[in-house]
Protein backbone atom coordinates (compact mmCIF):
# COMPACT_ATOMS: atom_id res chain seq x y z
CA UNK A 1 0.00 0.00 0.00
CA UNK A 2 1.21 3.49 -0.75
CA UNK A 3 1.16 6.26 1.79
CA UNK A 4 -1.98 8.38 1.76
CA UNK A 5 -1.20 12.05 1.34
CA UNK A 6 -3.78 14.61 2.40
CA UNK A 7 -3.29 18.31 1.75
CA UNK A 8 -3.85 20.30 4.94
CA UNK A 9 -3.48 24.00 4.46
CA UNK A 10 0.03 25.05 3.56
CA UNK A 11 1.65 21.73 4.38
CA UNK A 12 1.02 18.07 3.69
CA UNK A 13 0.17 15.51 6.37
CA UNK A 14 1.57 12.05 5.75
CA UNK A 15 -0.56 9.25 7.13
CA UNK A 16 1.33 6.03 7.01
CA UNK A 17 -0.80 2.92 6.76
CA UNK A 18 -0.81 0.83 9.92
CA UNK A 19 1.16 -2.39 9.27
CA UNK A 20 -0.94 -5.59 9.43
CA UNK A 21 1.02 -6.95 12.38
CA UNK A 22 0.38 -3.78 14.36
CA UNK A 23 -3.30 -3.93 13.44
CA UNK A 24 -3.34 -7.44 14.86
CA UNK A 25 -1.53 -6.42 18.04
CA UNK A 26 -3.83 -3.42 18.50
CA UNK A 27 -6.96 -5.57 18.41
CA UNK A 28 -7.40 -7.20 21.84
CA UNK A 29 -10.45 -9.18 20.76
CA UNK A 30 -8.67 -10.75 17.79
CA UNK A 31 -5.81 -11.59 20.13
CA UNK A 32 -8.35 -13.05 22.56
CA UNK A 33 -9.69 -15.28 19.81
CA UNK A 34 -6.20 -16.45 18.83
CA UNK A 35 -5.19 -16.94 22.47
CA UNK A 36 -8.16 -19.24 23.06
CA UNK A 37 -8.31 -21.01 19.69
CA UNK A 38 -4.64 -22.01 19.41
CA UNK A 39 -4.26 -23.80 22.78
CA UNK A 40 -7.79 -25.18 22.62
CA UNK A 41 -7.06 -26.93 19.33
CA UNK A 42 -3.41 -27.89 19.88
CA UNK A 43 -3.64 -28.89 23.51
CA UNK A 44 -7.20 -29.73 24.57
CA UNK A 45 -8.89 -30.96 21.39
CA UNK A 46 -5.94 -32.97 20.03
CA UNK A 47 -5.14 -34.30 23.51
CA UNK A 48 -8.69 -35.43 24.26
CA UNK A 49 -8.99 -36.92 20.77
CA UNK A 50 -5.95 -39.08 21.48
CA UNK A 51 -7.41 -40.20 24.80
CA UNK A 52 -10.82 -41.12 23.42
CA UNK A 53 -9.10 -43.08 20.64
CA UNK A 54 -7.60 -45.47 23.19
CA UNK A 55 -9.38 -48.85 22.86
CA UNK A 56 -11.45 -49.75 25.90
CA UNK A 57 -10.20 -52.84 27.75
CA UNK A 58 -12.43 -55.90 27.50
Amino acid at each position, binding site marked *: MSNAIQPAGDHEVFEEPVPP*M*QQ*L*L*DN*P*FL*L*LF*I*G*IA*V*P*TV*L*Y*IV*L*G*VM*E*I*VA*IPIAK
Partner: protein
Amino acid sequence: MAVNRMFRTCPASGLVFHEPAENLMKANAVAAAVSLLVGGILAIGVTLTRWQAVHMLPPDSFYLFLTAHGLNMLVFWIIFFEMAILYFTSSTLLKCRLAAPGIGWVAFWMMVVGALMNNYAVFRGDSSVMFTAYAPMGAHPTFYLGLILFAVGALISCFVFFATLVVAKSEKTYNGSVPLVTFGAITAAIIAVFTIASGAIILVPTFLWSVGFIDHIDSLVYRTVFWAFGHSSQQINVSAHVAVWYAIAAIVFGAKPLSEKVSRTAFFLYICFLQLASAHHLLADPGLTSNWKIFNTSYAMYLAVLASMVHGLTVPGSIEVAQRQKGYTNGLFEWLRKAPWGNPAFSGMFLSLIGFGFLGGISGVMMGTEQLNLLIHNTLYVPGHFHATVVVGTTLAFMSLTYFLIPVLFRRQMMFAGMAPWQPYVFGLGMMGVSLFLMGAGTLGVPRRHWDIAFAGNPLPYEFPGSAWLMMALAGISSIFAFVGGAMYLAITVGSVFFGKKIETPGFKEISAQQGMVGRPQPAAAPADTTVIAGHQGGVGAGGMCMVAPGTFVLAIVFLVSFVLYYFINWKYLSTVWPLR
Protein backbone atom coordinates in the same frame (compact mmCIF):
# COMPACT_ATOMS: atom_id res chain seq x y z
CA MET B 1 -27.68 5.86 35.80
CA ALA B 2 -25.01 8.19 37.08
CA VAL B 3 -21.51 7.48 35.89
CA ASN B 4 -18.76 8.16 38.38
CA ARG B 5 -16.12 10.21 36.62
CA MET B 6 -14.21 11.13 39.74
CA PHE B 7 -10.52 11.07 38.94
CA ARG B 8 -7.52 12.02 41.03
CA THR B 9 -4.01 12.69 39.84
CA CYS B 10 -1.22 11.37 42.00
CA PRO B 11 1.13 14.34 42.61
CA ALA B 12 4.15 12.04 42.96
CA SER B 13 3.74 9.86 39.87
CA GLY B 14 1.35 11.81 37.66
CA LEU B 15 -0.83 8.71 37.36
CA VAL B 16 -4.57 9.27 37.07
CA PHE B 17 -6.81 7.10 39.24
CA HIS B 18 -10.53 6.61 38.65
CA GLU B 19 -12.17 6.33 42.04
CA PRO B 20 -14.13 3.08 41.50
CA ALA B 21 -11.13 1.44 39.86
CA GLU B 22 -8.93 2.57 42.73
CA ASN B 23 -11.29 1.02 45.27
CA LEU B 24 -11.38 -2.25 43.36
CA MET B 25 -7.58 -2.29 43.13
CA LYS B 26 -7.31 -1.78 46.87
CA ALA B 27 -9.88 -4.48 47.66
CA ASN B 28 -8.21 -7.03 45.39
CA ALA B 29 -4.74 -6.18 46.71
CA VAL B 30 -5.90 -6.57 50.33
CA ALA B 31 -7.60 -9.91 49.54
CA ALA B 32 -4.37 -11.00 47.87
CA ALA B 33 -2.33 -10.09 50.94
CA VAL B 34 -4.72 -12.03 53.22
CA SER B 35 -4.35 -15.09 50.97
CA LEU B 36 -0.58 -14.67 51.07
CA LEU B 37 -0.69 -14.55 54.87
CA VAL B 38 -2.74 -17.75 55.11
CA GLY B 39 -0.63 -19.53 52.50
CA GLY B 40 2.60 -18.38 54.12
CA ILE B 41 1.65 -19.68 57.57
CA LEU B 42 0.72 -23.02 56.02
CA ALA B 43 4.05 -23.11 54.16
CA ILE B 44 5.89 -23.39 57.46
CA GLY B 45 3.96 -26.55 58.34
CA VAL B 46 4.74 -28.07 54.95
CA THR B 47 8.42 -27.26 54.92
CA LEU B 48 9.08 -28.22 58.54
CA THR B 49 7.47 -31.57 57.88
CA ARG B 50 9.50 -32.33 54.77
CA TRP B 51 12.65 -31.39 56.66
CA GLN B 52 13.14 -34.89 58.00
CA ALA B 53 15.01 -33.87 61.16
CA VAL B 54 11.96 -31.84 62.24
CA HIS B 55 9.13 -33.77 60.56
CA MET B 56 6.56 -31.66 62.37
CA LEU B 57 3.10 -32.70 61.16
CA PRO B 58 1.36 -36.06 61.09
CA PRO B 59 0.39 -37.23 57.57
CA ASP B 60 -3.26 -36.13 57.59
CA SER B 61 -2.38 -32.61 58.74
CA PHE B 62 0.53 -32.48 56.29
CA TYR B 63 -1.69 -33.14 53.27
CA LEU B 64 -4.30 -30.70 54.58
CA PHE B 65 -1.62 -27.99 54.96
CA LEU B 66 -0.17 -28.81 51.54
CA THR B 67 -3.59 -28.54 49.88
CA ALA B 68 -4.47 -25.22 51.51
CA HIS B 69 -0.96 -23.83 50.93
CA GLY B 70 -1.08 -24.68 47.23
CA LEU B 71 -4.51 -23.20 46.64
CA ASN B 72 -3.98 -20.02 48.65
CA MET B 73 -0.64 -19.32 47.03
CA LEU B 74 -1.04 -20.60 43.47
CA VAL B 75 -4.62 -19.46 42.97
CA PHE B 76 -5.98 -16.95 45.46
CA TRP B 77 -2.96 -14.72 46.25
CA ILE B 78 -1.81 -14.58 42.68
CA ILE B 79 -5.15 -14.08 40.93
CA PHE B 80 -6.47 -11.49 43.40
CA PHE B 81 -3.29 -9.49 42.83
CA GLU B 82 -3.54 -9.95 39.07
CA MET B 83 -7.06 -8.51 39.09
CA ALA B 84 -5.66 -5.42 40.83
CA ILE B 85 -3.02 -5.25 38.09
CA LEU B 86 -5.66 -5.54 35.35
CA TYR B 87 -7.62 -2.60 36.79
CA PHE B 88 -4.41 -0.59 37.20
CA THR B 89 -3.13 -1.23 33.69
CA SER B 90 -6.48 -0.48 32.08
CA SER B 91 -8.13 2.36 33.97
CA THR B 92 -5.04 4.06 35.41
CA LEU B 93 -2.54 3.69 32.58
CA LEU B 94 -5.13 4.52 29.92
CA LYS B 95 -6.54 7.38 32.06
CA CYS B 96 -10.08 6.25 31.57
CA ARG B 97 -13.05 5.33 33.71
CA LEU B 98 -13.48 1.72 34.68
CA ALA B 99 -16.25 0.02 32.74
CA ALA B 100 -18.99 -1.43 34.93
CA PRO B 101 -17.48 -1.07 38.42
CA GLY B 102 -20.63 -2.60 39.90
CA ILE B 103 -19.98 -5.79 37.98
CA GLY B 104 -16.37 -5.58 39.11
CA TRP B 105 -17.58 -5.65 42.72
CA VAL B 106 -19.89 -8.60 42.02
CA ALA B 107 -16.88 -10.42 40.55
CA PHE B 108 -14.73 -9.51 43.54
CA TRP B 109 -17.26 -10.84 46.07
CA MET B 110 -17.73 -14.01 44.04
CA MET B 111 -13.97 -14.52 44.25
CA VAL B 112 -13.96 -13.84 48.00
CA VAL B 113 -16.85 -16.24 48.66
CA GLY B 114 -15.24 -18.84 46.39
CA ALA B 115 -11.91 -18.59 48.18
CA LEU B 116 -13.59 -18.83 51.60
CA MET B 117 -15.70 -21.78 50.51
CA ASN B 118 -12.70 -23.62 49.14
CA ASN B 119 -10.68 -22.98 52.31
CA TYR B 120 -13.65 -24.15 54.38
CA ALA B 121 -13.75 -27.40 52.42
CA VAL B 122 -10.04 -27.99 52.95
CA PHE B 123 -9.99 -27.11 56.65
CA ARG B 124 -12.93 -29.45 57.26
CA GLY B 125 -10.33 -32.15 56.79
CA ASP B 126 -12.07 -34.22 54.13
CA SER B 127 -10.68 -32.44 51.05
CA SER B 128 -6.94 -32.93 51.34
CA VAL B 129 -6.67 -33.62 47.63
CA MET B 130 -3.96 -31.03 47.01
CA PHE B 131 -4.01 -28.33 44.37
CA THR B 132 -4.36 -30.85 41.54
CA ALA B 133 -7.36 -32.70 43.06
CA TYR B 134 -6.86 -35.57 40.62
CA ALA B 135 -10.06 -37.54 40.04
CA PRO B 136 -11.01 -40.14 41.17
CA MET B 137 -9.60 -38.78 44.43
CA GLY B 138 -12.66 -36.91 45.59
CA ALA B 139 -13.13 -33.81 47.71
CA HIS B 140 -16.15 -32.26 49.42
CA PRO B 141 -18.48 -30.59 46.85
CA THR B 142 -17.79 -27.15 48.36
CA PHE B 143 -14.15 -27.61 47.35
CA TYR B 144 -15.07 -27.63 43.65
CA LEU B 145 -17.91 -25.15 44.05
CA GLY B 146 -15.57 -22.66 45.73
CA LEU B 147 -13.04 -22.98 42.92
CA ILE B 148 -15.76 -22.58 40.28
CA LEU B 149 -17.16 -19.46 41.99
CA PHE B 150 -13.69 -17.99 42.28
CA ALA B 151 -12.91 -18.77 38.63
CA VAL B 152 -16.16 -17.28 37.35
CA GLY B 153 -15.55 -14.14 39.43
CA ALA B 154 -12.05 -13.83 37.95
CA LEU B 155 -13.46 -14.37 34.45
CA ILE B 156 -15.98 -11.56 34.97
CA SER B 157 -13.15 -9.30 36.18
CA CYS B 158 -11.26 -10.08 32.97
CA PHE B 159 -14.24 -8.96 30.92
CA VAL B 160 -14.51 -5.75 32.96
CA PHE B 161 -10.87 -5.24 31.97
CA PHE B 162 -11.61 -5.82 28.28
CA ALA B 163 -14.64 -3.53 28.49
CA THR B 164 -12.42 -0.83 30.01
CA LEU B 165 -10.13 -1.11 26.98
CA VAL B 166 -13.19 -0.46 24.80
CA VAL B 167 -14.14 2.57 26.93
CA ALA B 168 -10.62 3.99 26.65
CA LYS B 169 -10.61 3.55 22.89
CA SER B 170 -14.08 5.00 22.37
CA GLU B 171 -13.40 7.98 24.65
CA LYS B 172 -9.99 8.44 22.98
CA THR B 173 -8.04 8.65 26.23
CA TYR B 174 -4.93 7.41 24.43
CA ASN B 175 -3.54 7.60 20.94
CA GLY B 176 -2.07 4.83 18.84
CA SER B 177 -1.33 1.55 20.59
CA VAL B 178 -1.88 0.87 24.27
CA PRO B 179 1.24 1.17 26.48
CA LEU B 180 3.46 -1.90 26.58
CA VAL B 181 2.61 -2.57 30.25
CA THR B 182 -1.09 -2.60 29.36
CA PHE B 183 -0.32 -4.89 26.43
CA GLY B 184 1.37 -7.29 28.86
CA ALA B 185 -1.78 -7.17 30.99
CA ILE B 186 -3.91 -7.90 27.91
CA THR B 187 -1.73 -10.98 27.36
CA ALA B 188 -2.30 -12.03 30.96
CA ALA B 189 -6.06 -11.48 30.66
CA ILE B 190 -6.27 -13.54 27.44
CA ILE B 191 -4.41 -16.42 29.03
CA ALA B 192 -6.69 -16.02 32.07
CA VAL B 193 -9.80 -16.43 29.92
CA PHE B 194 -8.44 -19.66 28.38
CA THR B 195 -7.31 -20.87 31.81
CA ILE B 196 -10.60 -20.19 33.57
CA ALA B 197 -12.67 -21.65 30.74
CA SER B 198 -10.56 -24.82 30.92
CA GLY B 199 -11.08 -24.90 34.68
CA ALA B 200 -14.83 -24.66 34.18
CA ILE B 201 -14.79 -27.43 31.56
CA ILE B 202 -13.26 -29.87 34.03
CA LEU B 203 -14.34 -28.59 37.46
CA VAL B 204 -18.07 -28.33 36.68
CA PRO B 205 -18.39 -32.06 35.79
CA THR B 206 -16.12 -32.93 38.71
CA PHE B 207 -18.43 -30.99 41.03
CA LEU B 208 -21.42 -32.84 39.57
CA TRP B 209 -19.51 -36.10 40.12
CA SER B 210 -18.84 -35.11 43.75
CA VAL B 211 -22.57 -34.63 44.39
CA GLY B 212 -23.50 -37.85 42.59
CA PHE B 213 -25.01 -36.59 39.33
CA ILE B 214 -22.21 -38.12 37.26
CA ASP B 215 -20.86 -41.56 38.10
CA HIS B 216 -17.45 -41.44 36.46
CA ILE B 217 -14.69 -38.97 35.61
CA ASP B 218 -11.98 -40.28 33.30
CA SER B 219 -8.72 -39.72 35.13
CA LEU B 220 -6.62 -39.00 32.02
CA VAL B 221 -9.15 -36.57 30.56
CA TYR B 222 -9.27 -34.90 33.98
CA ARG B 223 -5.49 -34.60 34.11
CA THR B 224 -5.26 -33.27 30.56
CA VAL B 225 -7.93 -30.61 30.91
CA PHE B 226 -7.03 -29.80 34.52
CA TRP B 227 -3.50 -28.84 33.51
CA ALA B 228 -4.89 -26.43 30.93
CA PHE B 229 -6.21 -24.71 34.06
CA GLY B 230 -3.54 -25.62 36.62
CA HIS B 231 -0.47 -24.80 34.60
CA SER B 232 -1.92 -22.02 32.46
CA SER B 233 -2.95 -20.22 35.64
CA GLN B 234 0.76 -19.87 36.27
CA GLN B 235 1.24 -18.55 32.75
CA ILE B 236 -1.10 -15.67 33.63
CA ASN B 237 1.50 -14.90 36.28
CA VAL B 238 4.35 -14.95 33.82
CA SER B 239 2.67 -12.41 31.55
CA ALA B 240 1.63 -10.27 34.50
CA HIS B 241 5.02 -10.25 36.18
CA VAL B 242 6.83 -9.50 32.90
CA ALA B 243 4.48 -6.51 32.55
CA VAL B 244 5.45 -5.55 36.11
CA TRP B 245 9.16 -5.77 35.18
CA TYR B 246 8.61 -3.31 32.33
CA ALA B 247 6.55 -1.06 34.63
CA ILE B 248 9.21 -0.96 37.36
CA ALA B 249 12.00 -0.34 34.84
CA ALA B 250 9.97 2.64 33.64
CA ILE B 251 9.06 3.84 37.15
CA VAL B 252 12.52 3.59 38.72
CA PHE B 253 14.74 4.48 35.76
CA GLY B 254 12.44 6.09 33.19
CA ALA B 255 13.55 3.19 30.98
CA LYS B 256 11.90 2.59 27.63
CA PRO B 257 11.86 -0.81 25.94
CA LEU B 258 14.74 -1.42 23.55
CA SER B 259 12.23 -2.24 20.87
CA GLU B 260 8.47 -1.96 21.26
CA LYS B 261 7.95 -4.19 18.23
CA VAL B 262 10.13 -6.97 19.59
CA SER B 263 8.59 -6.81 23.08
CA ARG B 264 5.03 -6.86 21.73
CA THR B 265 5.87 -9.72 19.38
CA ALA B 266 7.26 -11.60 22.36
CA PHE B 267 3.96 -11.09 24.21
CA PHE B 268 2.16 -12.31 21.08
CA LEU B 269 4.21 -15.51 21.24
CA TYR B 270 2.97 -15.89 24.82
CA ILE B 271 -0.63 -15.51 23.65
CA CYS B 272 -0.20 -18.26 21.06
CA PHE B 273 2.06 -20.76 22.74
CA LEU B 274 2.63 -20.24 26.45
CA GLN B 275 -0.40 -22.27 27.56
CA LEU B 276 0.83 -25.32 25.67
CA ALA B 277 3.58 -25.87 28.23
CA SER B 278 0.83 -27.46 30.36
CA ALA B 279 1.64 -30.70 28.56
CA HIS B 280 4.88 -31.16 30.49
CA HIS B 281 2.82 -32.46 33.42
CA LEU B 282 1.67 -35.32 31.20
CA LEU B 283 4.99 -36.35 29.67
CA ALA B 284 5.06 -39.60 31.63
CA ASP B 285 1.38 -40.41 31.09
CA PRO B 286 0.41 -43.32 28.88
CA GLY B 287 -2.35 -42.74 26.36
CA LEU B 288 -1.00 -39.52 24.92
CA THR B 289 1.35 -39.87 21.98
CA SER B 290 4.86 -38.51 21.75
CA ASN B 291 3.68 -36.41 18.81
CA TRP B 292 1.28 -34.50 21.03
CA LYS B 293 3.72 -34.30 23.93
CA ILE B 294 6.73 -33.19 21.92
CA PHE B 295 4.83 -30.70 19.78
CA ASN B 296 3.35 -28.98 22.82
CA THR B 297 6.31 -29.03 25.16
CA SER B 298 9.11 -28.61 22.68
CA TYR B 299 8.25 -27.02 19.34
CA ALA B 300 5.47 -24.77 20.59
CA MET B 301 6.78 -24.16 24.09
CA TYR B 302 10.21 -23.15 22.78
CA LEU B 303 8.55 -20.22 21.01
CA ALA B 304 7.21 -19.09 24.39
CA VAL B 305 10.66 -19.66 25.92
CA LEU B 306 12.10 -17.49 23.14
CA ALA B 307 9.63 -14.79 24.19
CA SER B 308 10.74 -15.05 27.82
CA MET B 309 14.38 -14.72 26.76
CA VAL B 310 13.44 -11.61 24.75
CA HIS B 311 11.83 -10.06 27.83
CA GLY B 312 14.71 -11.18 30.04
CA LEU B 313 17.06 -9.39 27.64
CA THR B 314 15.10 -6.23 26.92
CA VAL B 315 14.15 -5.33 30.50
CA PRO B 316 17.73 -5.16 31.86
CA GLY B 317 18.82 -3.81 28.47
CA SER B 318 16.40 -0.91 28.76
CA ILE B 319 17.61 -0.26 32.31
CA GLU B 320 21.23 -0.27 31.09
CA VAL B 321 20.42 2.22 28.32
CA ALA B 322 18.65 4.51 30.81
CA GLN B 323 21.53 4.27 33.27
CA ARG B 324 24.14 4.95 30.58
CA GLN B 325 22.20 8.02 29.52
CA LYS B 326 22.54 9.22 33.12
CA GLY B 327 26.32 8.92 32.87
CA TYR B 328 27.00 5.47 34.26
CA THR B 329 29.13 4.49 31.30
CA ASN B 330 32.30 3.07 32.84
CA GLY B 331 33.01 -0.53 31.95
CA LEU B 332 30.42 -3.15 31.31
CA PHE B 333 28.60 -3.06 34.62
CA GLU B 334 28.80 0.39 36.24
CA TRP B 335 25.12 0.85 35.31
CA LEU B 336 24.32 -2.24 37.38
CA ARG B 337 26.64 -1.49 40.29
CA LYS B 338 25.21 2.01 40.63
CA ALA B 339 21.61 0.83 40.36
CA PRO B 340 19.42 1.67 43.40
CA TRP B 341 19.90 -1.64 45.21
CA GLY B 342 18.42 -0.11 48.37
CA ASN B 343 15.13 0.56 46.59
CA PRO B 344 13.00 -2.55 47.21
CA ALA B 345 10.95 -1.92 44.07
CA PHE B 346 14.10 -2.29 41.95
CA SER B 347 15.95 -4.96 43.94
CA GLY B 348 12.84 -7.13 44.13
CA MET B 349 12.23 -6.79 40.41
CA PHE B 350 15.82 -7.58 39.48
CA LEU B 351 16.03 -10.61 41.79
CA SER B 352 12.72 -11.75 40.30
CA LEU B 353 14.15 -11.45 36.80
CA ILE B 354 17.37 -13.31 37.63
CA GLY B 355 15.61 -16.05 39.61
CA PHE B 356 12.91 -16.53 37.01
CA GLY B 357 15.40 -16.75 34.15
CA PHE B 358 18.29 -18.72 35.61
CA LEU B 359 16.38 -21.03 37.96
CA GLY B 360 12.82 -21.22 36.64
CA GLY B 361 13.46 -20.79 32.94
CA ILE B 362 16.36 -23.18 32.48
CA SER B 363 14.79 -25.87 34.67
CA GLY B 364 11.48 -25.43 32.84
CA VAL B 365 13.04 -26.16 29.47
CA MET B 366 14.81 -29.18 30.90
CA MET B 367 11.53 -30.48 32.35
CA GLY B 368 9.74 -29.88 29.06
CA THR B 369 12.04 -32.25 27.18
CA GLU B 370 10.26 -35.58 27.08
CA GLN B 371 13.32 -37.76 27.61
CA LEU B 372 14.87 -35.60 30.34
CA ASN B 373 11.53 -35.31 32.09
CA LEU B 374 11.87 -38.98 33.02
CA LEU B 375 14.73 -38.01 35.34
CA ILE B 376 12.66 -35.79 37.55
CA HIS B 377 8.98 -36.49 36.82
CA ASN B 378 6.87 -36.21 39.98
CA THR B 379 9.93 -35.57 42.11
CA LEU B 380 10.63 -32.53 44.28
CA TYR B 381 12.31 -31.02 41.23
CA VAL B 382 8.84 -29.91 40.07
CA PRO B 383 8.05 -27.82 43.20
CA GLY B 384 11.64 -26.55 43.02
CA HIS B 385 10.99 -25.33 39.47
CA PHE B 386 7.69 -23.66 40.20
CA HIS B 387 8.92 -22.01 43.38
CA ALA B 388 11.50 -20.36 41.11
CA THR B 389 8.89 -19.23 38.58
CA VAL B 390 5.84 -18.50 40.72
CA VAL B 391 7.46 -17.40 43.97
CA VAL B 392 10.80 -15.87 42.98
CA GLY B 393 9.47 -14.74 39.61
CA THR B 394 5.88 -13.69 40.18
CA THR B 395 5.49 -13.17 43.92
CA LEU B 396 8.68 -11.16 44.25
CA ALA B 397 7.75 -9.02 41.24
CA PHE B 398 4.32 -8.35 42.76
CA MET B 399 5.94 -7.53 46.10
CA SER B 400 8.25 -5.05 44.43
CA LEU B 401 5.31 -3.38 42.68
CA THR B 402 3.61 -3.00 46.07
CA TYR B 403 6.40 -0.73 47.27
CA PHE B 404 5.44 1.61 44.44
CA LEU B 405 1.71 1.26 45.05
CA ILE B 406 1.67 1.98 48.80
CA PRO B 407 2.28 5.73 48.40
CA VAL B 408 0.65 6.02 44.96
CA LEU B 409 -2.48 3.89 45.30
CA PHE B 410 -3.05 3.66 49.04
CA ARG B 411 -1.67 7.18 49.68
CA ARG B 412 0.22 6.07 52.77
CA GLN B 413 3.80 6.57 53.81
CA MET B 414 5.83 3.40 54.11
CA MET B 415 6.13 1.99 57.60
CA PHE B 416 9.30 0.19 58.68
CA ALA B 417 11.21 2.10 56.02
CA GLY B 418 14.50 0.75 57.37
CA MET B 419 13.34 -2.84 56.96
CA ALA B 420 11.90 -2.51 53.47
CA PRO B 421 15.25 -2.43 51.59
CA TRP B 422 16.20 -5.78 53.15
CA GLN B 423 12.92 -7.56 52.49
CA PRO B 424 13.46 -8.55 48.81
CA TYR B 425 16.89 -10.00 49.65
CA VAL B 426 15.69 -12.04 52.62
CA PHE B 427 12.65 -13.34 50.75
CA GLY B 428 14.22 -13.66 47.31
CA LEU B 429 17.49 -15.28 48.33
CA GLY B 430 15.68 -17.57 50.79
CA MET B 431 13.27 -18.68 48.11
CA MET B 432 16.06 -19.15 45.57
CA GLY B 433 17.64 -21.48 48.13
CA VAL B 434 14.35 -23.36 48.49
CA SER B 435 14.11 -23.76 44.71
CA LEU B 436 17.70 -24.87 44.26
CA PHE B 437 17.68 -27.39 47.09
CA LEU B 438 14.30 -28.84 46.14
CA MET B 439 15.57 -29.27 42.58
CA GLY B 440 18.70 -30.89 43.98
CA ALA B 441 16.64 -33.31 46.06
CA GLY B 442 14.40 -33.99 43.07
CA THR B 443 17.40 -34.80 40.90
CA LEU B 444 18.31 -37.40 43.53
CA GLY B 445 14.82 -38.87 43.16
CA VAL B 446 13.05 -37.56 46.27
CA PRO B 447 9.30 -37.84 45.54
CA ARG B 448 7.22 -34.74 45.16
CA ARG B 449 4.45 -35.35 47.63
CA HIS B 450 5.45 -38.08 50.01
CA TRP B 451 5.09 -37.16 53.63
CA ASP B 452 8.08 -39.19 54.82
CA ILE B 453 11.13 -39.97 52.67
CA ALA B 454 12.37 -42.29 55.43
CA PHE B 455 9.44 -44.58 54.52
CA ALA B 456 9.36 -45.61 58.20
CA GLY B 457 7.31 -48.74 58.80
CA ASN B 458 6.79 -49.50 55.11
CA PRO B 459 7.17 -53.08 53.93
CA LEU B 460 9.27 -52.01 50.94
CA PRO B 461 11.51 -49.19 52.20
CA TYR B 462 13.86 -47.20 50.04
CA GLU B 463 16.97 -45.53 51.35
CA PHE B 464 17.83 -42.17 49.83
CA PRO B 465 21.47 -41.03 49.84
CA GLY B 466 22.61 -38.74 52.65
CA SER B 467 22.90 -35.88 50.14
CA ALA B 468 19.12 -36.03 49.59
CA TRP B 469 18.51 -35.63 53.30
CA LEU B 470 20.98 -32.73 53.34
CA MET B 471 19.13 -31.08 50.45
CA MET B 472 15.85 -31.39 52.32
CA ALA B 473 17.38 -29.83 55.43
CA LEU B 474 18.87 -26.95 53.42
CA ALA B 475 15.51 -26.40 51.72
CA GLY B 476 13.90 -26.25 55.18
CA ILE B 477 16.44 -23.70 56.44
CA SER B 478 16.06 -21.61 53.28
CA SER B 479 12.31 -21.67 53.61
CA ILE B 480 12.57 -20.21 57.11
CA PHE B 481 14.52 -17.30 55.63
CA ALA B 482 11.86 -16.93 52.93
CA PHE B 483 9.12 -17.08 55.57
CA VAL B 484 10.82 -14.28 57.51
CA GLY B 485 11.03 -12.29 54.26
CA GLY B 486 7.33 -12.88 53.63
CA ALA B 487 6.48 -11.80 57.19
CA MET B 488 8.56 -8.63 56.67
CA TYR B 489 6.58 -7.91 53.49
CA LEU B 490 3.24 -8.34 55.22
CA ALA B 491 4.34 -6.25 58.21
CA ILE B 492 5.44 -3.44 55.91
CA THR B 493 2.44 -3.51 53.59
CA VAL B 494 -0.32 -4.17 56.13
CA GLY B 495 1.28 -1.73 58.58
CA SER B 496 1.59 0.95 55.91
CA VAL B 497 -1.89 0.48 54.46
CA PHE B 498 -3.73 0.48 57.78
CA PHE B 499 -1.45 2.47 60.10
CA GLY B 500 0.86 4.45 57.81
CA LYS B 501 0.76 8.24 57.81
CA LYS B 502 -1.75 9.41 55.23
CA ILE B 503 -0.48 11.29 52.18
CA GLU B 504 -2.89 14.07 51.30
CA THR B 505 -3.64 14.69 47.63
CA PRO B 506 -4.32 18.39 46.99
CA GLY B 507 -7.82 19.00 45.71
CA PHE B 508 -9.01 15.42 46.24
CA LYS B 509 -12.40 14.95 47.88
CA GLU B 510 -14.36 11.79 48.37
CA ILE B 511 -17.49 12.10 46.23
CA SER B 512 -20.10 9.40 45.95
CA ALA B 513 -20.90 7.86 42.59
CA GLN B 514 -24.22 9.64 42.29
CA GLN B 515 -22.68 13.06 42.89
CA GLY B 516 -19.39 12.54 41.16
CA MET B 517 -20.43 13.86 37.82
CA VAL B 518 -17.72 15.80 36.13
CA GLY B 519 -17.05 16.24 32.46
CA ARG B 520 -15.72 13.48 30.30
CA PRO B 521 -11.93 13.29 30.25
CA GLN B 522 -10.44 15.20 27.38
CA PRO B 523 -9.26 13.13 24.43
CA ALA B 524 -5.54 12.59 24.56
CA ALA B 525 -3.32 14.88 22.55
CA ALA B 526 -0.53 13.20 20.64
CA PRO B 527 1.62 11.81 22.10
CA ALA B 528 -0.84 10.60 24.69
CA ASP B 529 1.13 10.03 27.81
CA THR B 530 2.86 12.23 30.29
CA THR B 531 4.21 9.58 32.59
CA VAL B 532 7.01 7.19 31.75
CA ILE B 533 5.09 4.13 32.90
CA ALA B 534 2.30 4.82 30.46
CA GLY B 535 4.62 5.82 27.65
CA HIS B 536 4.97 3.63 24.61
CA GLN B 537 7.49 5.30 22.42
CA GLY B 538 9.99 3.14 20.58
CA GLY B 539 13.48 2.55 21.91
CA VAL B 540 16.78 1.98 20.26
CA GLY B 541 15.84 -1.13 18.31
CA ALA B 542 16.91 -4.64 19.08
CA GLY B 543 19.46 -4.65 16.31
CA GLY B 544 21.68 -2.26 18.25
CA MET B 545 21.44 -4.31 21.43
CA CYS B 546 25.11 -5.30 21.59
CA MET B 547 26.24 -1.71 20.98
CA VAL B 548 23.90 0.18 23.32
CA ALA B 549 23.69 -2.37 26.13
CA PRO B 550 26.96 -4.32 26.15
CA GLY B 551 26.63 -5.32 29.82
CA THR B 552 23.24 -6.90 29.21
CA PHE B 553 24.67 -8.62 26.14
CA VAL B 554 27.37 -10.21 28.33
CA LEU B 555 24.74 -11.25 30.90
CA ALA B 556 22.73 -12.83 28.10
CA ILE B 557 25.77 -14.80 26.94
CA VAL B 558 26.34 -16.01 30.53
CA PHE B 559 22.70 -17.09 30.62
CA LEU B 560 22.94 -18.95 27.32
CA VAL B 561 26.14 -20.75 28.35
CA SER B 562 24.51 -21.77 31.65
CA PHE B 563 21.44 -22.91 29.75
CA VAL B 564 23.39 -25.07 27.28
CA LEU B 565 25.66 -26.54 29.93
CA TYR B 566 22.81 -27.48 32.25
CA TYR B 567 20.81 -28.95 29.39
CA PHE B 568 23.62 -31.20 28.25
CA ILE B 569 24.60 -32.16 31.79
CA ASN B 570 21.11 -33.59 32.15
CA TRP B 571 21.46 -35.58 28.92
CA LYS B 572 24.72 -36.96 30.31
CA TYR B 573 22.95 -37.74 33.58
CA LEU B 574 20.17 -39.50 31.69
CA SER B 575 22.73 -41.66 29.91
CA THR B 576 24.11 -42.82 33.26
CA VAL B 577 20.80 -43.71 34.85
CA TRP B 578 19.54 -45.48 31.77
CA PRO B 579 22.61 -46.92 30.03
CA LEU B 580 22.49 -48.47 26.58
CA ARG B 581 24.22 -51.82 26.62
